[in-house]
């Protein structure tokens, strides 16, 4: 009997018994076992893009440009929002410690890490159909290019991590040219291996069309106009581009993944799949008695963080004829009952309408509305830009006019009564891009590409200068943009935690 007990003691101490793995999650080897796992891991890359663009990080590219700016009270909401305002007025908050700026960096690299893991893992997964395997690889490389394209434009030289870099390794900043080389490499692979839009198993997946459009944009950004032109022509001739007839349908929430769309970021009203941009772009829809509950379903309602600049909301449009004006701008402000009411002194200007929720959305913090990344009119305007830069100004008018005609405007040469010069068209295209694509996240990159960031921001987005005429001793922040702001600062925590970098590896001026 005591022998039996001693046996029990020994049994209780059996070594093997400690092998207990929590089963609520999986690790790398389980994920890339089969097609289902590999597909799920690619889905996770898209999720990261959805995360990046669902809230205030999406303001990068929009504020701090000539189309949109932060309200002055957004600064007073607290330190966090003062950081958001920093993106707009390039003040002391526009530093290596800015939350949005470092968060944008981090979120892009999480996307890259997921893409890298997929690019490394997919070849090991047992997938019967090789075209599926190469499509999944193509999607992963498209997404990696997308994230790197954001980073290289914003931050310049950046750590270039690919599927062979261990995550714990410190990585030096690679020259921007190397990053672009990797991006073009990835996109060429994507063009060759992705499926066309109509054949894709899921509508939101990256397609050949999206990859060509993005590749063209990358060439354009690099001022490689010849390759840009070829790429756009290939897209237009081989795959075709469609514009919706009614511009306002693009943003009514009822025409998601339409014929014009090449790649859009998908949201839905399911938990964790919503975006909250209207909270940033809308304005208070107060109730008559202060302090009572706000209505988060009123048209145009929101947290009064971002307004259109006077240039975008008041100047750039031919308000009477351009159909895009009322589809892009809320000229009125509404109270909780849906009645129009006066604007405050600030914002004082209309808000951007493109993110406003529709009846099928939950509220301004939770909208299921998709966001455009690439659409046909963007390609037409980029094509026009490439042609104009190649001194084919006359030919550039054709794609531009497609966009103008859809907006209810005459051909440019008819409206002007003459053909513009190359320089005139350059400026006109920049304005046209604002009319067509305003508030969609490309403005900062357009201005940087065309070398007009500092001058246009100083001219059109200096709230203090603007408001001083209404109010002496005005509290609006002063615009501080200078040439150094053509590059964002590298986040401080990257310099501190990346063992291959030191604090001196910062962009100039920060």
């Amino acid at each position: 009997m005591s022998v039996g007990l001693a046996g029990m003691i020994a049994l209780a101490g059996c070594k093997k018994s400690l092998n207990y793995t929590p089963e609520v999650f999986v690790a790398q080897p389980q994920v890339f076992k089969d097609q289902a796992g590999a597909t799920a891991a690619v889905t996770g890359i898209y999720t990261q893009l959805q995360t990046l663009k669902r809230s205030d990080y999406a303001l990068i590219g929009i504020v701090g440009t000539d189309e949109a700016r932060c309200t002055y009270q957004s600064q007073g909401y607290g330190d966090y929002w003062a950081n958001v305002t920093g993106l707009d007025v390039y003040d002391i908050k526009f530093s290596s410690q800015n939350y949005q700026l470092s968060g944008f960096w981090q979120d892009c690299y999480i996307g890259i890490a997921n893409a890298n893991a997929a690019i490394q893992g997919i070849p090991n997964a047992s997938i019967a159909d090789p075209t599926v395997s190469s499509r999944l690889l193509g999607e992963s490389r498209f997404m990696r290019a997308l994230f790197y394209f954001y980073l290289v434009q914003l931050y310049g030289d950046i750590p270039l991590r690919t599927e062979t870099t261990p995550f714990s390794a410190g990585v030096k900043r690679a020259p921007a040219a190397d990053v672009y080389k990797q991006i073009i490499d990835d996109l060429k692979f994507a063009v060759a291996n992705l499926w066309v839009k109509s054949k894709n198993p899921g509508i939101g997946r990256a397609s050949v069309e999206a990859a060509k459009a993005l590749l063209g944009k990358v060439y354009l950004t690099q001022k490689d106009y010849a390759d840009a032109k070829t790429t756009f022509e290939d897209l237009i001739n081989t795959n075709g581009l469609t514009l919706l007839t009614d511009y306002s349908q693009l943003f009514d929430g009822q025409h998601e993944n339409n014929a014009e769309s090449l790649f859009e970021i998908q949201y839905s009203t399911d938990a964790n799949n919503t975006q909250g941009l209207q909270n940033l772009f809308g304005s208070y829809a107060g109730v008559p008695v202060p302090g009572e509950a706000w209505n988060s379903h009123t048209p145009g309602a929101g947290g009064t963080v971002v307004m259109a600049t006077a240039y975008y909301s008041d100047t750039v449009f031919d308000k009477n004829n351009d159909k895009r004006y009322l589809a892009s701008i809320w000229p009125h402000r509404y109270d909780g009952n849906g009645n129009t009411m006066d604007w405050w002194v600030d914002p004082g200007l209309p808000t951007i309408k493109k993110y406003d929720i529709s009846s099928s959305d939950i509220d301004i913090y939770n909208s299921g509305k998709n966001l455009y990344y690439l659409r046909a009119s963007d390609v037409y305007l980029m094509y026009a830009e490439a042609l104009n830069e190649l001194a084919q100004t006359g030919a550039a008018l054709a794609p531009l006019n497609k966009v103008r005609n859809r907006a209810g405007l005459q051909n440019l040469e008819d409206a002007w009564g003459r053909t513009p010069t190359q320089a005139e068209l350059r400026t006109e295209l920049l304005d046209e891009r604002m009319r067509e694509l305003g508030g969609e996240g490309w403005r900062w990159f357009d201005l940087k590409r065309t070398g007009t960031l500092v001058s246009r921001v100083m001219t059109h987005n200096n709230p203090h200068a603007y408001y001083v005429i209404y109010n002496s001793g005005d509290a609006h922040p002063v615009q501080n943009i200078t040439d150094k702001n053509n590059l964002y600062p590298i986040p401080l925590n990257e310099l501190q935690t990346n063992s291959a970098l030191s604090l001196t590896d910062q962009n100039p001026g920060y």
Partner: protein
Amino acid sequence: MQIPRISGHGRFFRSIVHPRILFILFALGFILEVSAQQRQVQGVVQDAKTHSPLALATIHVKSKGVPDVTKITDSRGHFSFNAAPGTSLEVTYTGYKSIQLTVNDDSATVTILMDAVYGKLEDFVFIGYGKEKKPDLTSSISSLSSKDINELPATNLASAIASRTPGVEVHSNGYAPGSGNSVNVRGLNSITQSEGPLYVVDGVAITGDIRDLNPADIESIDILKDAAAAGIYGSRAAAGVVLVTTKHGKAGLATIDFSMYYGVQTPNNPYHMLDAKDYYNLKKFAFNDADPVTYAPDSPDTKFFNQYELKSIANGFKTYDWLKAVTRSAAPMQNYSIGISNGVGKNKVYFSGNYQDQKGIMINTGYTRYAGHFSIESDINSIFKLGGTVNVDHNVTKGVTSSVYQNALTQSPLMPIFDSTGAPLVITDQSTGTLTIRNPMTSALYSVNNYTANRTMANFYIEVTPIRNLVLRSSIGADLLNAESDVYYPRNTGEGFSTNGSAEVYNTKSTDVLWENTATYTWRKGDHDLNVVAGATYERRENTAMDMKGQQFPTDLLTFKNMGSAGIKTQDNTNYDGWIVQSYLARAIYKFKKRYILNLTGRRDGSSRFGQDNRYGFFPSASVAWRLIDEPFMGFKLKSFLSDWKIRASYGLIGNQNLPYDAIYTRYNNAQYPFNGSNATSGYQVGGTAGNPTLEWERQHQSNLGMDIAALNNRVSLSVDVYNKNITSLLLPFNLAPSSGFYNEQINVASMNTKGIDINFQATPVKTRNFEWQMTFNWSRYKSKITHLLPGRDSVSLSLRVGQPPSGVLVNYVFDGLYQQGDDFTLNPNGKPGDIKIKDLNHDGKITPQDQTIVGYNIPGGWGGLWNWFRYKSVTLTVLASYEYGQQLNNLPYTNLTYYNSWFGNIGNVTKEGGNCWTPTNTHTNIPRPNAFATSLKPLPGGPDQGSSYSIQKGDYIRIKSITLAYDIPGAVTQKMKLRNMNVYVQALEPFLFTGYKGLDPDNGNPTQLENYPRYRTFLVGVKLGL
């Protein structure tokens, strides 16, 4: 009446001893018995004070030449025995001092008076896998008996030990019925992985708290404080070990104990808000101050107030008392317990049942508990013994939305609470269907906020004694918890209106099974005394959780009960995790001449939470004690004064296995993406925290030096313990480069040191036949500081730095008075006179986060309790007080209730003190200028929520925790009523709090948590009776 007692030994021998030998023995006994001169003597055993009879007292009758006889008193305390010249009696009774006396030659009756023992001076103390006499302890252990525990009608164990045990800090997590407590043994023991102590109930280690255990079922609590005491629990002992022993059947006749109390709780609110007239003036002033154009002083009232408020103004500033509306003026509380013990024969059984119902001081809140407890111990024969304990508990907590109390405080006193139909006044906008006027009454009345727990803690064992001195024991224990929290906010509440009802059902289930096998060997020869325990244990725990949240319900009628009808599911999640710990343990206690005592303990733990190469850890400890009092050199003179004197020393290593259960794995998390804009597709995403398979235990090296001294026949006693803890390998998240795609990984890197002292003093200043006064006093303090953080860095944040405590460091901006007319406004260009001024610590001309500094420590300089017990004849008075001093609290709730326009309720009411705010004509005040848009706090980069050193307040306090007046009904009366004993009492709980702190309660680490529920006083009447 005599109870024949058949001992297991006797029967065993009968079966193996030859019948003939048995006959001879029997005959011998017979001869001896008849040869003595014998006579029948009657005895009675009574309580020395009350003279009430003591049933079931055990009397050993010893006469020369006759085998000892054991007698047990009947329900009237009577017994009879055969006495011969020189017969002596040894009387024992649980809770009383044992007595030995010799029977006089001629007395026919003997009356034995027994003195009740308070405290556990002579009792056994549980030490984990065994027990030890208190005088022989080598380490630091605090003990409480059931009498101590049941002095207060505590709903959970933690509040029963609060302020009774030195070195143990108990803070309340709130006033709401059913709220838990946080318990720290000797300060904090980790930076990131702090948990309360390990609770061990009847040998079963419990993960998490034990608030579901009914305190009335507890026989004793022993708190193992130093490493040598706790070391037998190895890797789980770092935060101390609380051993809980539940009630067992006692040898003797069946007894029934019944107790009940009934009481009421009345509000004890520290906040006094402005009345309607003052509120009216302040609001108008504040709006005018913020926007003199829109809200000019001569603007009509309609600019400021809604139609209902205007009506109240017209009615001569009718004031509505919102706080009164959401609270009960007298909330009843009742409790009934019955316990039955039966210990006749080979089986000892104990059964108890308990019902408790506490209505909360806030309407629609409360706590109900049904508890059952069953214990059996059965001697099969001299070799085998079986036993088991089952605790079953079902409790329901009805909570309240956290905002109700705050909103009631800040609600406009001009607003009517109810409409003409008697329903809470809410205004729904017909055109949009939304709520335009919110009312906290709707949340209080209509929202559902229930927490239901079902818990079973059970333990069964078999003990085998194959040879003398060796006991083998195998036990299986289980802790099964199933808890569910149900929440529903209907559309007429502030929380549910914009979502058309929102619901959550959160269900957690945990299963913990522990199998332990131990062998205990005792050996005694001459001056040597050895006790060795060795064993192996295996524990497996599994947790599952299910969380569902939904919105957009078609009707409020079904509340949370039909999640399927939710229009939108905002959460739909399950979780599953668990771990295995498997250990070997050993302990040897060696005593030489009963005065030199050595204790060696070791435990080797293996845990599945760690990576392959780091699963095992060894945790050894050693302790010694020297009983100076028993030394021959202690002279007679000294000994007549000193009754006890002992020195203890210990050193040991204990661990902390609490790390996130997935910390060693790089996990792929669930991700979703709605391809085609609607249907979400599931995916995986990697990121966040990277796994680190090289993680190890947090290690604590603790040394303890203690002394126990008692004098004047134990009338005065003192225990002092000083300790030093070096805690190393502390887990910290180590930030990875953001470009890696991961945020951080956990590494074992930091270390800290804690030094402290615990003192316990007991005295019986007065002891006469009619009047007696006993008291105990304890005082504790500690100092913790971080000695090492990340490599090359001596700070992680402003509050986490080398040289500072691991938590409780209050970092904030420094309040520098209010701006006055003509001041320099460089630091706050938007500021106006009356705004808060912040010190520019780094003199850069701006207020930035770098201007924050340490403005206080939320760590007590010392704390403890004072217990006083007075008896006059059969009446006793008990007063228990607790105190704490030296800690500072960031009293944001009070500050925000005092500033006009706080984050509580944008334009709400303020305290009466807040009415004395800065105005151009009232500049000598520290209350800032009222303003509707919070500009006075605007310069703070953290925004208005963050406050400044302005809200740091001293948390020193003395609290009278209870005053109890009790009367023991005299034995003559109880005998007539056929009762064993009866006690009636009245009690006041937390009647007084003396503090300069201006918030709800200084006894809380995080003041904002407490602001959810008001304070109250409780008055009880109760009765305890024994059958």
